[in-house]
């Protein structure tokens, strides 16, 4: 039970910090402060993902969001006239619109995460997944080569076979055993390119059109 409480504490600390920094992003007048707070918030989210055993997702969170996108934000924000920005007080209308959108998003995420298998059974989210795995694939611990210690060095890492079962509950035990040799990256890749292939490709096109649009906007139009 000690393990559960440690992982609970760490999870809630990072979750609270993430929310705190997120509030600071909206609250601070100085755009650079906002950007830096956002980076810290991303860091906390990455830490939570690490704690859940999703190391790949956590590190991608840092590489893509904290390491690239936010730096670009900072890049642009730094060129603003900060005195002008600090004087600006946002209108009530934009605040209302923002709150509504945030509330809708939060509702969506909550409903989706509650519909995941085993989400409502145990109070600690990490323990929920770990215990769930234990029930689904009893042989998982034995096949693990070296358990990567999570928080406090005691939490067993998310075993790939069990994770495979957690994502796709309908696959057979043989397939789950096959997935033991794979890591969460392969698992993620397989899920993205098989189950969610169409959505993934559509997203890719959306990003591409965004890029093309940005290039078209930024490009100087020559008259000759």
């Amino acid at each position, binding site marked *: 039970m000690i393990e559960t409480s440690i992982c609970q504490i760490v999870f809630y600390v990072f979750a609270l910090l993430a929310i705190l920094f997120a509030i600071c992003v909206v609250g601070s007048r100085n755009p650079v402060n906002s950007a830096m707070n956002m980076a810290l918030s991303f860091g906390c989210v990455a830490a939570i993902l690490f704690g859940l055993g999703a190391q790949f997702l956590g*590190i991608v969170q840092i*590489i893509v969001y904290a*390491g690239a996108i936010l*730096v670009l934000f900072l890049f642009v924000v*730094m060129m603003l006239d900060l005195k002008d920005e600090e004087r600006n007080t946002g209108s009530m209308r934009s605040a209302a619109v923002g709150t509504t959108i945030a509330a809708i998003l939060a509702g969506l995420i909550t409903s989706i995460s509650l519909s995941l298998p085993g989400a409502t059974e145990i109070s600690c989210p990490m323990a929920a997944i770990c215990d769930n795995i234990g029930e689904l694939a009893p042989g998982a611990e034995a096949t693990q080569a070296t358990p990567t210690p999570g928080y406090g*060095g*005691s939490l067993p890492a998310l075993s790939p076979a069990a994770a495979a079962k957690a994502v796709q509950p309908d696959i057979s035990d043989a397939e789950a055993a096959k997935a033991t040799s794979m890591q969460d990256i392969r698992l993620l890749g397989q899920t993205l390119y098989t189950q969610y292939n169409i959505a993934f490709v559509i997203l890719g096109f959306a990003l591409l059109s965004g890029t093309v649009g940005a290039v078209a906007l930024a490009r100087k139009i020559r008259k000759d």
Partner: protein
Amino acid sequence: MDAICNWWNDLMSNDIWFYLLTTAVKLVIMFALILAFVVLSVWIERRVAGWIQDRPGPNRAGLPLFLLQRFGSKEKQPLKDVLHFFGIPETSRIARLCTWLRLDREIPTFGLMQPCLDGGKLFLKQETTPSYVRKLYFIVAPMLVLGPPMVAAAVLPFASCVDTIYGSISMCVANLDIGPLWIFAISGLSVYGLTLAGWSSNSKYPFLGGLRATAQLISYEVAMGLSVIPLLMMFGTLNLQSIVQYQADNGWTLLPLWGEGLSLQRWVMMLPLGISFLIFVTCVFAEANRTPFDMAECETDLVGGYHTEYSSMKFASFFMGEYAAMVIGSAVVVTLFLGGWSIGFGADAALASYSQWLAVLCQTLMFIVKLLAFIFFFVWVRWTLPRFRWDQVMKLGWLVFLELTVANIFLTAAVLYFVK
């Protein structure tokens, strides 16, 4: 005595304590190694720069013997005492050799003390913080530059593993399954340091330096991440320890001469891997802000770049951060392409079967030798190439490397699929 042994046994038998203690020891070793290498690479940089320019470089800064004289040896040259003690005449060849090494005046360090003394000087210098800077970010920025490379080093394996009676110790601080990604992510965070330093200085040249640093680091991070994908496709794992183990068994990435490395597929793979190597090394140069790409602190057009307004130890931490990034960059290249700690030609397995501790020692030494060789290469390139122009840097990153790496991934896939 027995009580202590028992207590130790109990302590080490506990998985958590065993993990914590071994990790702490490895952490200290790794940290000391990196810091020592920062000093050493500064020395290598200055010596090699000297040799390339027909100068000796810093060759003084020995430990002067007058310090000894002050503690009691009174007027006498210690060298003469030593020679007399061994009964060597003062005109013999040995005595002349000692004089040539300046042993009569100092204990020679061949200039190795120079970086330490420079560090001491910077530490004792007056710290000036301009009144117009944004204080918080101005203070945080140097930390953000020095910290990430040190943290990134955590996943680098410096030897294989050892089986003890309490459990197996993998010679790598954190044996994560996302090794290279961890390094890219964490060392990529140092861009915050450069950007914030440039912005918080509140002065135009540092600002331009910060902007350049941001743009450059982001551009090359893309190509860097894509250029290792062929490797990962070949290894099929992201764990650096297993990547190096694979290379130890089956030939280094760029030297497939034993094990499975002699297959046709591996030799055909040399083409995409060679391209990967070139691009990756170039990107490491760009990420470490080293000379052909040191646009951010290009003194000819930006005074000193992002660290213009910094002085004393804050400047020193930028300086050290740059060299730490260089050391980590070299270590990553060595790990991914040049076999990491592996001694090669099957010697690892043979040594490990003889004695695992001996194998680990030899492997650590091998890793250090490879690292030093690659740091030398870094320095060699720096004193050969002139700095690129800014638009050339951007063009190279976005128009050449990005396309080339994507094409390279497809080429690798084709090779892996068609050549068996």
